[in-house]
């Protein structure tokens, strides 16, 4: 008998919990409050940790900066603005969970993010099914091709960067044979595939297409393979530190062919890492990296100068392009909400109707058929000359 009771102990315990929980929830169900009226809530899913953290951190910084600047002023239509930031740890599954939570629990009006293409694509189904506008900071072509009604992007796309690189190869270098060495991750593969596809149309043959692992520390085998080819230039598609290692390995192997990087090395870190090997490296990047490339006195130049100054003041380091992506994403949405308020449908229309909005990366024009705000014109080719960036005219 005794053990019969014991046999029921846990079940009964559990049952009590169950009942208590249900009753409890009923209780707090009555005093349900909705605070989203007074504040404009915008959710942001960024990669603050994991491999894509170098992208997510600056994006977060500029969003916080934007938030405080807006709220210091009139906010948006007198409403305070709040960016609720979630970390997806560069993991698609976490990104999906984060956006779902922001929309269902926090009741945000729109979404920013994510930083990397993979996480962004994972969020798309949720944004589309909940009719929530998503402005991402990822450059992967797949995000806006084909166009998805609720998904917009701020950074220049990889294909724009690729067009820029091809233009440089044919125009300045007059190269007809190139080698590609790319990171095996989504960014590298995406870029390399598109580059290899587009090159022939520009009369360029790809004589070698090699890859390396994101964490590899020695790429000499791939480079020796490329050395054996008649390649006149090497295009490296990847993010730090891979390209820096490659630059150093090329120096070690005394390879003289030009090193053309991707927009993934458009930051000072690359110069620090590669040291002397960085000199002569060329890559496509945003004008904001070299403010002097923007005509003085134009609203764009003023915006860039103010932004870079504020950022430096707030965080003690130079703003990179990722910071710019974050800022622009925030600006695009808050601008749209000036007219649309918090109505999801209207936000979509407002963002899609955005014309001539001056951001940091460039001037944004969206339409029903084009959800990449920028064009290849918003990119410049940059060469590293004794450790400093100089624009190639």
């Amino acid at each position, binding site marked *: 008998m005794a053990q019969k009771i014991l046999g029921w*102990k846990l079940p009964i315990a*559990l049952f009590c919990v*169950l009942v208590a929980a249900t009753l409890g929830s009923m209780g707090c169900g009555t005093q349900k409050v909705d605070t989203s009226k007074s504040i404009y809530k915008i959710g942001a899913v960024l990669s603050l940790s994991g491999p894509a953290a170098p992208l997510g951190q600056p994006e977060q910084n500029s969003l916080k900066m934007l938030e405080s600047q807006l709220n210091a002023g009139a906010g948006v239509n007198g409403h305070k603005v709040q960016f609720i930031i979630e970390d997806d740890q560069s993991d*698609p*599954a976490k990104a999906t969970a984060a956006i*779902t939570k922001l929309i269902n629990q926090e009741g945000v009006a729109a979404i920013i993010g994510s930083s990397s293409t993979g996480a962004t*694509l994972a969020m798309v189904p949720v944004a589309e099914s909940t009719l929530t506008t998503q402005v991402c900071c990822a450059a992967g072509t797949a995000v806006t091709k084909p166009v998805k009604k609720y998904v917009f992007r701020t950074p220049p796309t990889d294909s724009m960067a690729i067009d820029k690189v091809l233009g440089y190869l044919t125009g300045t270098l007059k190269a007809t044979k190139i080698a590609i060495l790319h990171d095996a991750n989504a960014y590298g593969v995406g870029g390399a595939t598109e580059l290899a596809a587009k090159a022939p149309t520009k009369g360029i043959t790809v004589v070698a297409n090699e890859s390396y692992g994101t964490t590899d520390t020695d790429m000499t085998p791939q480079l020796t393979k490329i050395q054996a080819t008649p390649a006149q230039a090497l295009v490296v598609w990847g993010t730090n530190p891979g390209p820096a290692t490659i630059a150093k390995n090329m120096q070690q192997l005394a390879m003289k062919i030009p090193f053309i990087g991707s927009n993934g090395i458009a930051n000072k870190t690359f110069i620090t890492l590669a040291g002397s090997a960085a000199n002569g490296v060329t890559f496509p990047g945003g004008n904001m990296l070299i403010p002097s490339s923007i005509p003085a006195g134009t609203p764009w130049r003023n915006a860039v100068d103010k932004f870079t100054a504020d950022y430096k003041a707030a965080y003690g380091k130079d703003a990179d392009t990722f910071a710019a992506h974050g800022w622009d994403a925030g600006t695009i949405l808050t601008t749209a909400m000036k007219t649309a308020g918090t109505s999801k449908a209207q936000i979509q229309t407002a963002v899609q109707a955005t014309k001539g909005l001056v951001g940091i990366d460039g001037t944004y024009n969206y339409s029903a058929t084009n959800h990449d705000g920028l064009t290849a014109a918003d990119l410049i080719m940059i060469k590293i000359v004794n450790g400093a960036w100089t624009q190639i005219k």
Partner: protein
Amino acid sequence: MDKQLARPLDDGRDYRTLGIVTAFILLIPVWARFIPGDVLHIDIVNVMVLAGIYACVVVGLNLLVGYAGQISLGHAAFFGIGAYTTAILCTRIHGFPTWLGVMAGAALSGAIGWLVGKPVLRLKGHYLAMATLGLGEIAFILFQQLKGLTGGTVGILDIPPLSIFGLKFDTDLKLYFVVWIIVMALMLLSINLMRSRVGRGLRALHSSEVAADAMGVNTSTYKVQVFVLSAAFAGLGGALFAHFQKYINPESFVLAVSIMFITMVVVGGMGNIWGGLIGVLLLTFLPQVIQAMPQWIPGLPSALQNFSNYELVLYGLLLILFMMFLPKGVADGLGRATDFTEVRARRLGDRRRAKKLEGR
């Protein structure tokens, strides 16, 4: 009395508990919706669906690691095989029944488990760990490289939601019930298994392979069979994952995920039927709670408001502490707290049988 004897090791306790737990879990959404989101800052239903999907893997992995004592650091691979199988079938073949895709995912994953398990399970301990880890990495690289099939690093988009005989499970809430009913079915299966001849065989082999062999347990076959079973469970979980996410790419099937699974098993409690479940719930909600905490406490110093700085610090710390204070797993701790452990349950069952026999 023969009725009693007819059910060895079983005074129904686990089955009763399973019943209550099922009821409890199926009721969660009911009261979850009463809690305004901006109070909890956690989307319980959504997180629970993901937890349920992980649970499919972990329950199976617990049979392999906890009961049979064979470690695997590569189960993310089977998770991935399940996901890609159904994703490819349902996106390439128009109108392919999704539930069939899920089945196929589990089946293929089990089959591959058999192929690799047969040779690899001859290894022991850390060497088995290394081999399974290697298999996981190879699978990951294949997911990346077989572009034609898996869409490479971009992955597979627009995976249709799960639908069974016309019923579409396109919202988290609908999926919640499917997933958790499946999990409970798997739980029932493992409870049955572990209370049966097979379960004893596996536990025997865990305790001493030589002795188990000598007592007539075909250990080599059992190892492979339980490995296949756990692979199939993992594949099933992966398939559900694909239809839940509607988009998959290789990043969801990395080594870190395999390690997360094994961690869930150990934190929950190896070789304890409830361990897997508890481990999953704990480690799926932990990061959510850590992320939500700053919003719970108003007026937090700005240094702490940026959770991305310390979320993993905290996570790692808690992981260590759990193991230090509950080295046999949380389930075991709970068990001792409520004075209810599997072993004890079995002892009581057998004691009673002994008494019965006296009277015979």
